[in-house]
Each structure stands twice: as C-alpha cells, then as structure tokens.
C-alpha cells in the first residue's frame, strides 16, 4: 500500500480498535440477567411469549 493509505489504515484501526473493544465490553456489562430480545417489534415478543 502507498504510504498515505498505510497511514489512513493505521489511524482508522487506532480509532476502530478501542471502539470495538468498548462496544463489546459495554454490551456484555449491560446484558440483562435473563436475556430477552427487547429490540424486536413488541407485538412479536408478546405473541411469542
């Protein structure tokens, strides 16, 4: 890769790497004790349960 692309690539990963780590950590910490799917449309959850 050209020097400019290598630089962009590195900067991008220095931002994305910690962001990926943070989102996984937050998602695991926020995980409900009894996981349910809040994000799916409400009527479907009610129907399923």
């Amino acid at each position, binding site marked *: *890769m050209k020097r400019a692309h290598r630089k962009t690539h590195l900067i991008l990963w220095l931002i994305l790497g910690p962001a990926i780590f943070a*989102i996984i950590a937050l998602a695991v910490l926020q995980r409900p004790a009894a996981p349910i799917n809040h994000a799916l449309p409400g009527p479907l959850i009610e129907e399923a349960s």
Partner: protein
Amino acid sequence: MSHDYKSVQWTPFKKRFDLWMLGGIAMYLVGFISITYLTQPDGDSFTPIQALMRATGTLAFLLLTFILCIGPLARITDRFKPFLYNRRHLGVTTFLIALVHAALVVLWYHGFADINPLVSVFISNPRYDSLSGFPFEVLGVGALLIMFLMAATSHDFWNANLGPGFWKALHMGVYVAYALLIAHIALGAIQFEKSPIYVVLLASGGTIVAALHIATGLASFGGAKKPEQDGWLIVARTGEMEDGRAKIIKPQSGEAIAVFLDGDKISAVSNVCRHQGGPLGEGKIVDGCITCPWHGFQYRMEDGQSPPPFTEKIATYATRIVDGTIYVNPEPNAPGTPQAPSHIGATT
C-alpha cells in the same frame, strides 16, 4: 491479470478455491442448523427460518472476520497468500450470505407489519437512547450497505475507472462495516442469546482483527533506513538474498522499495503495485517477471513495465554492489524507465 473485460476472472486455481469455499459454506449451514435442532432446550422451538437466519448471520460474521485477518496474516506467513489471491470472491460471497440473512430477518420480523417492511426496520423500535434495547438491526443495515458498495465495485473495471488510490480508499470502508457488524451483534444477539459462545466469538473475533491490523500497521512504519553519506541505502549482503524473492527497503521518505534477486541479477522497483497497491516485495519472480502476491499483476525487472499487452508501469531504482553489499538509490526513476541490473560477482 487481464487486459480486457471479463465478468469473473476465473482461473483453474480460483475455480477450485470457489468450489472448496461453497462446499465449506454448505457444510457450515447444514451443521449449524443440525446442531441448533439437536441441542434445542425443552420449551424452545426454532423454526427452520430462524435457524437459517442464525446460521447465515454467524457465517457472515465469521467470514468477514477471516477476510480481515487475511491481509495481516499474509505478511506473517506465506500460507495465507492463496487466500489473499482469492479474497475478492470470498468478500462477494460474504455479502451475498449477509444479504440472505437480512432478507430473512426483514421477511420474518417485519414482513407482516402494516407498513413497508423496510420502513418497519427503521421505525418499529425507536429506543435509540437504550443500550440493551437499541434498534440493532439498523447497524446491520449500515454494514450491509457498505458491503454492497464493496461487492458492487469489486471488479477491476471499477478499479481502473475510479483509479487505484480512490478505489483503495473506498474499500477501506469494509473496516467501518466490520465495526458496525460488531455493534449489531453486541447490541443484538448478545442481549438475548443465552449461550456464552456468542460473547466468546464476538470478543475473540473483534480483538484478533483489531490487534492484527494495529500491529501490522505500526510495523509498516518502523524500520526506515538511514541513508549512507552519498544518499544510497544498504539493502543486504548478497548472501542474504533469496533467489526469486525481494528485500523490502523503507526509505525515510517516499514509498518502500522492493529489491529482487533473479539468478545473479539485482534489480529494484517500487514496492507498490499499480493495480491495488499490493506489496510487490512480498511477491516472487514468475516467468522472469515480478509478480504481485495480491492478484498476480506482473512487471519486468529491467524497466518496471508490465509485459505486453498490459500497460502498467512502476518506478525503477538504481542498484550497486560494493564488497558484497547491495545498495539502492532511494531516488526513483520515472515509472517504466529502463534500469540496468547489478550483477553479483561482477566488478563494480
């Protein structure tokens, strides 16, 4: 490497690779669905559509994780070079699998809504202020759109028309797509799947990809050579060169230089392939030509030009051998300029 338009640039090797790939995908899907049914806890009842949805979703994530590991791993070991050569087919296939996953989700969860199913994806869950209830499907849509852009412009036609620089910058969007995919799974499946295997897969995949890219990115800026008094750079002792292979030299400014040994001849060219910026110095000499490890683009050692009918040109560099030490002049010649090689054993 092709000088005319072909919809798919298949070679016998690529055809074999694609057959293996399709076989592996079929085995994964059948295996995943079978295991889902066999290990299903009492009280749960998966439909075949839901099982296929999970199978395609996990497969798309695993394939994209593997694709993003290929580049850095190919720098560490030659074993990954064949995957590098076939990465585009793997990428387009991953997009198609993700598309099947998305289509199943839209049909299954939004297809029976009173509003347009595609609109329903965006408005059925407005909890954008919640982490565990975040509308994670929107993040998946974002990743899918980027992957579509990648797949649609993956052909060399677009590389040639957009220009290698812009094309490369555009295709770095796949990293953003991967981050969106991680967020899609973290705020989706991780919030409602009971099995810890999803957490383990996501955390290990994201960590491995990020660590590999950051490590190889940092390494690519290290090891710049200081010039000698006359401005030339030391490459290596002649005995340290491997026939048909190159040493990559990084000047303090400008692009890296690939110094090749072919028999007793030493020649130096730019390390950057004209096609997609592939690292020529990690390739080898095939049929007398320097061959890019990414897609097989070739250049003659003596002038940096692709053999006819191809027209690509890269910069050449002057070399010399003094007392068994190879030197290269970091000032590039114009692309395609003939440059006489240095001969090992010849008097300098």
